[in-house]
């Protein structure tokens, strides 16, 4: 019987081509969005895995302590051996240092730590040698199997890792401790102990990561207490750029799910309309003894068949979307993005979810006993959800908590569409004026059940578009402001060797107004890797970072990320290399993945750093000529015109947010389809009235007036919901998501420009959906 009923429902669906096509399109776009984002994320994750430094392969935590030495490590190892370190399965000591020529050496125990130290970046056909190195950042100077000359030693190379923006620029050797101590000196202390821990939380994070790349960034890292004296950090402190990239993926993934959510609403809305139209037939079938369950099964099977086709198309469209986004971002991909089993299963699950959820809920509400609505309870529930969201927001510190709140509030907005339309209905009952306008208004609000979720879908898409737009606009303003303050030099030079000798020559060149030398050092502060930049921090230099006067030797500026990671505020003291420094200011450091401190050259000397300038900022009247002269004199130096750098940075910024624009546009399209479908259905419901009005002499302009007024009413209700949602979302993204994901806060700017695109596109969607006629409408073929 189910087969017969399925055929029957399918026939009905096929005879309602426009609503069927809109459902097909909704599922297709929802699945495409989810699939596209997944593939994009998987590509990024694959790249991240390729960039992961070998010594951190499979490492989950990093432990440090005051005056860490081999005996502390041995004690920890003994505890692991005895089985008294719960959850830890592997550990290895870490030693870091920099050679005189600037080469960084990262040494771990390639023996005791098993494969911890060497798993990545090693060619499978090359036998590992404890006297050899995996290298990064030697720019073609190191090839696998070709020995490398470092500090007068010949070191075989058994693996190379690509340098990237996410990793340190310095040439780096990853070696065994034996070779490491030979290079750095036997007195070099251990810096940390690397640990691989397995816990249910970790397994959950791994599973979620498989399900949605970047998802693990939403979870707070599991704690790993080692006992007195030990400080344990999540490995993300060593892989700051990776954590940020995963947080981006998490945000993009969440945004990618928006279309799917809107598609669920579209499916529900359409099912409600379909069931309403089939209600008499279904009731008659039940009267003659067809079980309700069989009818429901037939209905759902028909939906699944339609949804299955749409899912398959969505899968391919998602692949195309990901490919297009990557191409738009000028990202070279090694090959076509693979539709792995995970992707296919996820797409299928998404499609089934849309069909089943929309279908089952619509079926349930269509056949359940009708109760009188209690308006007071609705508003009370809304208030309760809002309060619960606020509480959740204040009690959680991970990204998942924020997104749970966003989901709650989005659900609340969807749900509020119904009472809002009902309120509109009561309002329109008391209206006077033009009959046609009153008729249109009444139609828009009278059948709230038919329209509510389409309005909710539009409000959701519009609200997210406004919120994301506000955040991006605010972020862009701050980013550009940061560029303007920071990029004050005309030329910027970086080199692998000391640049100090060039300072006098540069200062003597005509038109040169200022030469500023900078150096960097890598240190650990409370066990976390921190990049320290130093230079002559006079008042002019300090102003670039928002601090009004020159830095004293005991003063330091900290990036917002550093403040957050070290749990400090401006005015607090941070101890660096045993020397207490007062944090006198902070700076945003957008894009700087790691933790960064800035101090004067006196301060650097006070910390015992060997002053080694590798960067120069130059203010000059004729940067081009000076750049040419400098390039001729130092051909290996990298010389960048700051204005070009500024333009590049802004272009990169805009390119990156193409992804968010594309995803919100997708959601908007699905919402417009939902609305088009709902309004089309409503028009069909009103066909008898329309025909009567035609007989009474309604002309085309008057008919258009009705359509326009109806669409405007629907749009206004959607806007009433979308505006507060958008404003709230903008605030949450700036004040909660950004600090939690990236460590920086953005001041929300309510620029009118941020509203223009979403509002215009929303208005166009509403008007098109409301005013455009559907072919065949008059022939009654529309569902």
């Amino acid at each position: 019987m189910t087969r017969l009923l399925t055929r029957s429902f399918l026939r009905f669906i096929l005879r309602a081509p426009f609503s069927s096509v809109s459902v097909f399109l909704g599922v297709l776009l929802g699945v495409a969005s989810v699939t596209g984002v997944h593939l994009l994320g998987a590509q990024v994750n694959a790249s991240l895995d390729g960039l992961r430094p070998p010594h951190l392969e499979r490492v989950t935590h990093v432990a440090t302590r005051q005056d860490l030495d081999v005996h502390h490590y041995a004690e920890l190892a003994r505890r692991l051996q005895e089985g008294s370190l719960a959850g830890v399965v592997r550990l290895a000591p870490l030693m870091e240092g920099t050679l005189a020529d600037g080469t960084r050496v990262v040494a771990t125990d390639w023996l005791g730590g098993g494969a911890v130290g060497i798993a990545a970046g090693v060619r499978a056909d090359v036998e590992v040698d404890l006297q050899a190195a995996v290298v990064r950042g030697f720019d073609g100077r190191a090839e696998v199997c070709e020995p490398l000359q470092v500090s007068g030693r010949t070191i075989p190379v058994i693996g190379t890792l690509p340098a990237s923006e996410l990793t340190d620029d310095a040439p780096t050797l990853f070696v065994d401790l034996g070779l490491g101590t030979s290079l750095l000196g036997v007195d070099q202390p251990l810096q940390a102990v690397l640990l691989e821990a397995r816990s249910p939380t970790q397994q959950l994070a791994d599973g979620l990561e498989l399900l949605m790349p970047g998802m693990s960034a939403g979870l707070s890292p599991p704690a790993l207490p080692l006992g007195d004296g030990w400080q344990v950090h999540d490995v993300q402190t060593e892989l700051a750029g990776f954590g940020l990239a995963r947080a981006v993926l998490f945000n993009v993934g969440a945004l990618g799910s928006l279309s799917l959510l809107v598609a669920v609403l579209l499916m529900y809305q359409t099912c409600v309309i379909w069931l309403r139209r089939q209600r008499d037939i279904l009731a008659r079938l039940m009267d003659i003894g067809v079980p309700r369950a069989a009818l429901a099964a037939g209905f759902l099977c028909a939906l699944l068949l339609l949804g299955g086709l749409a899912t398959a198309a969505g899968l391919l469209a998602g692949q195309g979307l990901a490919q297009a986004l990557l191409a738009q971002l000028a990202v070279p991909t090694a090959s076509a993005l693979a539709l792995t089993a995970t992707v296919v299963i996820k797409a299928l699950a998404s499609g089934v979810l849309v069909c089943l959820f929309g279908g089952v809920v619509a079926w349930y509400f269509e056949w359940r006993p009708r109760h009188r609505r209690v308006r007071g309870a609705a508003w009370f529930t809304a208030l309760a959800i809002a309060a619960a969201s606020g509480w959740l927001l204040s009690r959680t510190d991970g990204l998942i908590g924020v997104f749970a709140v966003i989901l709650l509030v989005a659900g609340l907005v969807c749900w509020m569409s119904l009472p809002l339309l009902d309120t509109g209905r009561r309002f329109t009952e008391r209206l006077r004026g033009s009959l046609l306008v009153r008729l249109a208004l009444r139609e828009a609000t009278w059948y709230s059940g038919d329209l509510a979720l389409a309005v909710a879908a539009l409000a959701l898409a519009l609200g997210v578009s406004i919120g994301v737009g506000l955040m991006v606009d605010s972020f862009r303003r701050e980013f550009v402001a940061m560029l303007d303050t920071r990029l004050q030099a005309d030329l910027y030079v970086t080199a692998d060797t000391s640049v100090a000798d060039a300072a006098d020559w540069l200062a003597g060149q005509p038109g040169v107004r200022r030469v500023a030398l900078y150096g960097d050092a890598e240190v650990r502060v409370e066990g976390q890797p921190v990049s320290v930049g130093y230079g002559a921090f006079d008042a002019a230099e300090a102003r670039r970072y928002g601090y009004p006067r020159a830095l004293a030797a005991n003063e330091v500026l900290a990036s917002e990320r550093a403040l957050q990671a070290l749990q400090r505020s401006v005015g607090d003291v941070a101890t660096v290399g045993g020397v207490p420094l007062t944090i006198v200011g902070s700076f945003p450091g957008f894009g700087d993945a790691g933790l960064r401190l800035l101090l004067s050259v006196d301060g650097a000397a006070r910390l015992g750093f060997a002053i080694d300038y590798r960067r120069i900022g130059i203010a000059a009247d004729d940067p081009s000529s000076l750049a040419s002269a400098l390039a001729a004199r130092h051909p290996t130096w990298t010389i960048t015109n700051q204005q070009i750098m500024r333009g590049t940075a802004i272009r990169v910024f805009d390119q990156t947010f193409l992804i968010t624009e594309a995803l919100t546009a997708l959601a908007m399209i699905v919402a417009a389809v939902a609305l088009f479908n709902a309004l089309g259905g409503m028009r069909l419901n009103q066909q008898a009235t329309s025909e009567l009005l035609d007989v009474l002499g309604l002309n085309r302009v008057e008919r258009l007036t009705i359509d326009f007024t109806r669409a405007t009413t629907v749009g206004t209700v959607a806007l009433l919901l979308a505006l507060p949602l958008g404003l709230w979302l903008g605030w949450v993204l700036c004040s909660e998501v950004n600090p939690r994901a990236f460590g920086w806060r953005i001041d929300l700017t309510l620029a009118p420009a941020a509203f223009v695109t979403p509002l215009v596109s929303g208005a166009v969607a509403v008007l098109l959906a409301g005013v455009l006629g559907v072919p065949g409408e008059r022939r009654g073929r529309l569902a």
Partner: protein
Amino acid sequence: MIRGGCLLLLALLCGCSPPPPASLESSSLRLGALLQEGAAAQPFERAETVRAFRFPEDHGAHPTFRSEWWYVTANLSAADGRAFGVQFTIFRQALAPEPATPPNNPWASQQVYLAHFAISDVAAGEHTEAEWLSRAHPALAGVNGTPPVVRVGGWQLTFTESGFDVAATHADIAVELRFEAAKPVVAQGEGGLSRKSPGNASYYYSFPRLTVQGTLRSQNEAHLVTGLAWFDHEWSTSVLSDAQTGWDWFALHLHDGRDLMAFRLRRADGARDPFDHGVVVAADGAHTGLTHEDFTLTPVRWWADESGVRWPVTWHLDTGSERLVIHAAFDDQRMQTLISYWEGAVWISNEEGERLGEGYMELTGYAP
């Protein structure tokens, strides 16, 4: 500093090349080749001529040879009669023929230690194993002192005037045992030179019977235990030839006071290996070597593990004058470690089923 990658996703994607090749799991140690080294091992010292053992010095490490192991197997019983088997092994492997520990840089040692520790709880039918790998370092692992202490992390074997002590703890298993030699040391093979294949030999001596007492913890339950043990110490630079795929080794303590060791080297071509040998130590300590012509070892019952690997768990040992039936105390006593093998407690009977003794069995080269 402003890096172009403010927008991390793009920066990440733009900066990426395809991921590097697949990982190389645990290849640094090449543990699978621990016992199988060929001509490339020339710079190491080799076991080629008979030498006189000197104790306690020879209880210590011989770092000029590539490989070395100290092997303790014990059959113990608690006061309530509950039976246990204990295996405690320390392997040493030199990665390069250099002094064990350069005095000025302990991290630069080329010596690696691997320890295996297992308890077979016969009544419960549970075999629990643990392993620990460490580079040689004064704080981590190595051999020092006279009499020597062989240590890998917190697990150690401390030689004494009359035997040695073993202490090891891992999760819910632990031992603290004292071993006293009940018979003198036996030099295996030709005065301690144990030939395993043409041109390949090891230096090898054993304590064939040690009395044991101490404490043992299994399933988080502590027991006072006593029993008998066998100890081997062997070092070499090359042992097996390419034609040899593994071995079956037995150390048996018979109730009549005799101790018997025999091993069978398995060849890829299935033929009997002429280097199979063994030793019978009489109750008074006198020992007689067994050549491959003096005994046969025949598997008579097999047990298949979950991956389909078949392990011979019941054997016939024929010495001409008698046939011993060797039964695994229970079937699954696999060491699922870096090197996968079977090492566990056995009991011995005659063909009539009369119990004649206990011992240990080791089966290697069966698991891929």
